[in-house]
């Protein structure tokens, strides 16, 4: 039995934040769960996916976040408790659905989890999704601890049903990827089917309907604000003339700082966990007792701006600060010492920080950048593209996935990237704006997520570009989740038919489509050359299973290779491929047989044929 459903209520378990959120959903009796995988949210859905295989929970990896939200929205409006999980930038994709869903509302509870990533540990930006709550008008909750991350989910479902609105649960990486002891609660039985009651004048958002629905939303928000003002998730601790307002992970740093600085009698803390609508009356009362207020929040001054506006309404002229050059930055994540130091400085508390070691003479530590795995098929494809395009002036728009790492030298295959699917869309712009050859890269999962409209656009608007689809049979980057092109039988799941990327590409009218096996280097180079000669849109589908995924599926790798005596130390292998299985020992290239997967690519490009398979 899955560990998240095996233990009885009141058990204390060590849980990752994302496991706690998944458990919270199960406790709430969630019936439908949808997602598109994305760090730092991925383990929430992974656990729900696993649990769905041994329970009545319906779970799906949807093609993208917008579709995921639409599926969940319909289920919730049919009375079922539904959850939709995504990373912060996924909310941009889902936003079109989100902003009008807020007008329609829900019948069964709907919780939307957005996992923000301050510092961009694994994201292309660090947008602050609290503004989506404000933009859409939806209630929002923000946990500070792993226990709260779990507890807030059933609360969010109850709130959603009470207000008949979706509720946003907003986390940051440090909640998702922190682990702590959690006390489990009771699991509600889930309802697998309900019904959709037709009501087109409340569900079909033509302008006349939406005008009424928007007014309804604003009315519900007044009710939500009253709940927020008295919610236990907005609480005050300590007492004194100094005030600190904080949220989410920042609360922990504030809590520790106030203890460490021994100023519990001087400072009162207002922790905001129900952060949209902001608890106006509570905040106004809090401000009235303060001489000076500091707002501690990662990201944008979301709370600070609201608090300053409340102070203005009350005619309060006390100092309220948060984001400024000498206090908190809008950049990156905070840390305990930084928060302690800024609190001490702002409230003029004497404090001696821990002394840094003298590291001025420290030996230089080599960088350890992430790299494509040994035997990664992307490396083979990039090499083949590079050789095929030799002598041409090229631009390589790329996309989001492991293959983004191809932009690093020596492969250097990646010139432009803004979001999921941007490879194909931007190719069109480059092809119209420059005379260069445009070759773009997109992964299989990303192609399904948001590549297809771009491809149709390129065909119809007669762009001149070659698209290489790197089809490794899984969503590799986020931990090998399935997508519509995946053969689910490999995961022991029956009843799914994979959607063929090749068929899609042909169906939209791409005239030149080739499928290559990237480990066959010469054939691949020839096929890519041919595609590059096509006027208009050409597509090369490079098919080879992710080597890490193959290992997980217990598919054996080929025999490892070694460098034989013919080696003349040209080093084309190591210099051009940069496979991590290579190492240099005593000035000679060697292959680490424990890492080599036997992909044979280096053996094919060695000018001396000096790389051979190890004998058994």
């Amino acid at each position, binding site marked *: 039995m899955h560990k998240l459903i095996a233990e009885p209520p009141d058990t*204390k*378990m*060590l849980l990752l934040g994302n496991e706690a959120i998944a458990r919270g959903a199960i406790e709430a009796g969630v019936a439908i769960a949808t997602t598109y995988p994305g*760090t730092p949210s991925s383990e929430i859905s992974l656990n729900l996916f696993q649990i769905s295989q041994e329970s009545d929970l319906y779970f799906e990896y949807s093609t993208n976040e917008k579709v995921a939200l639409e599926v969940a929205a319909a289920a919730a409006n049919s009375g079922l408790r539904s959850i939709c999980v995504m990373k912060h930038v996924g909310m941009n994709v889902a936003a079109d659905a989100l902003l009008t869903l807020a007008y329609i509302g829900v019948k069964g509870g709907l919780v939307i989890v957005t996992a923000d990533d301050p510092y961009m*540990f*694994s994201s292309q930006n660090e947008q602050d999704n609290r503004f989506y709550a404000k933009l859409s008008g939806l209630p929002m909750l923000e946990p*500070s*601890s*792993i226990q709260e991350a779990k507890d807030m989910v059933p609360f969010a479902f109850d709130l959603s049903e009470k207000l008949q609105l979706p509720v946003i649960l907003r986390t940051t990486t*440090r909640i998702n*990827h*922190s*682990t*702590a*002891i959690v006390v489990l609660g009771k699991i509600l039985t889930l309802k697998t089917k309900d019904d959709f009651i037709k009501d087109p004048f409340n569900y079909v958002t033509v302008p006349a309907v939406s005008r009424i629905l928007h007014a309804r939303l604003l009315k519900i928000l007044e009710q939500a604000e009253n709940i927020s003002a008295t919610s236990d998730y907005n609480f005050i601790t300590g007492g004194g003339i100094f005030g600190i307002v904080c949220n989410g*992970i920042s*609360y*922990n*740093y504030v*809590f*520790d700082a106030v*203890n460490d600085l021994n100023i519990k009698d001087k400072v009162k803390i207002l922790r905001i966990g129900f952060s949209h609508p902001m608890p106006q009356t509570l905040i106004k009362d809090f401000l009235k007792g303060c001489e000076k207020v500091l707002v501690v929040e990662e990201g944008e001054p979301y709370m600070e701006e609201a608090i300053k506006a409340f102070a203005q309404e009350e005619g309060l002229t006390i100092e309220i600060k948060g984001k400024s050059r000498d206090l908190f930055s809008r950049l990156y994540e905070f*840390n*305990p*010492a*930084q928060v302690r130091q800024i609190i001490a400085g702002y409230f003029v508390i004497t404090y001696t*920080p*821990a*002394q*840094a*070691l*003298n*590291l001025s*003479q*420290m*030996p*230089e*530590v*080599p*960088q*350890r*950048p*992430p*790299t*494509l*795995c040994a035997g990664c098929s992307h490396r083979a494809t990039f090499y083949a593209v590079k050789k095929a395009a030799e002598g041409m002036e090229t631009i390589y728009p790329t996309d989001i996935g*492991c293959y983004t*790492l191809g932009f690093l030298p020596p492969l250097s295959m990646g010139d432009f990237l803004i979001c999921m699917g941007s490879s194909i869309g931007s190719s069109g712009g480059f092809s119209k704006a420059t005379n260069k050859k445009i070759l773009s890269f997109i992964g299989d999962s990303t192609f399904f997520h948001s590549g297809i409209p771009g491809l149709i656009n390129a065909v119809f608007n007669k762009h001149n570009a070659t698209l290489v689809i790197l089809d490794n049979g899984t969503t590799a980057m986020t931990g090998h989740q399935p997508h519509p092109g995946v053969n689910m039988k490999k995961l022991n799941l029956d009843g799914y038919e994979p959607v063929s990327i090749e068929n899609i590409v042909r169906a939209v009218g791409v005239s030149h489509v080739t499928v290559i096996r990237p480990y066959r280097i010469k054939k691949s180079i020839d096929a890519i050359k041919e595609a590059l000669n096509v006027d208009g849109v050409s597509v090369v589908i490079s098919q080879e299973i992710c080597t*890490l995924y193959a290992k997980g599926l217990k598919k054996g790798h080929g025999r490892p290779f070694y460098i034989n005596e013919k080696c003349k130390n040209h080093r084309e292998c*190591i*210099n051009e491929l*940069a496979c*991590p299985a*290579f*190492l*240099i020992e005593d000035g000679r290239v060697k292959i680490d047989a424990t890492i080599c997967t036997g992909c044979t690519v280096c053996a094919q490009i060695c000018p001396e044929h000096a790389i051979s398979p190890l004998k058994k």
Partner: protein
Amino acid sequence: MDTTRLIIVAVGGQGNLLASRVIGEAALNSGIPVRMSEIHGMAQRGGVVESAIIFGDAQSTIISDNEADVLLGFEPSETLRALNKCNSDTVVITNLAPLPPFTVATGSDTYPDLDGLLDFIRTRTARLIALDATALAIEAGNILSVNMVLLGALFQTNAIPIPSQRVKEAIAKVTRKAFLESNLKAFDLGFTAASSIG
């Protein structure tokens, strides 16, 4: 209770996250408040994996620069890289077996001299325990038990307020049955090695 802050640094694939899990379970079973966080963005692609484990009443799950009480490094150059987390009272435990990054293999970077690296750490911190955890893991019968060797060394120092017996129970709970014997042997080898370095 007083707060103890432990940083673990490793290269992706060395079993740092499992080691952290063992420590967390051991703390849970000992009634010690524990909070942890991990950063493993692209760890499977050869990057650095860092865990922070905080025992006691602090609420934070990360450790600021200069504030680690204990640093456990699974790879010598990574131990060195993490010295910014330490202060002069920090206890440092490190594996001696290098895993040079690819940048070294291609010759674009050089790997630091091991003796110089150890001297640098030893002269700046309270105590350095350096052992070849990789060799001891092989001796225990499983090269993948480097993490267990290092846990043994860590708990020998008494720097973490959890009895070794609890840690062994957690190893039994968290790690795979097939590897239990070699894991426990690895733990003991690390424990003994650290006491002889003592």
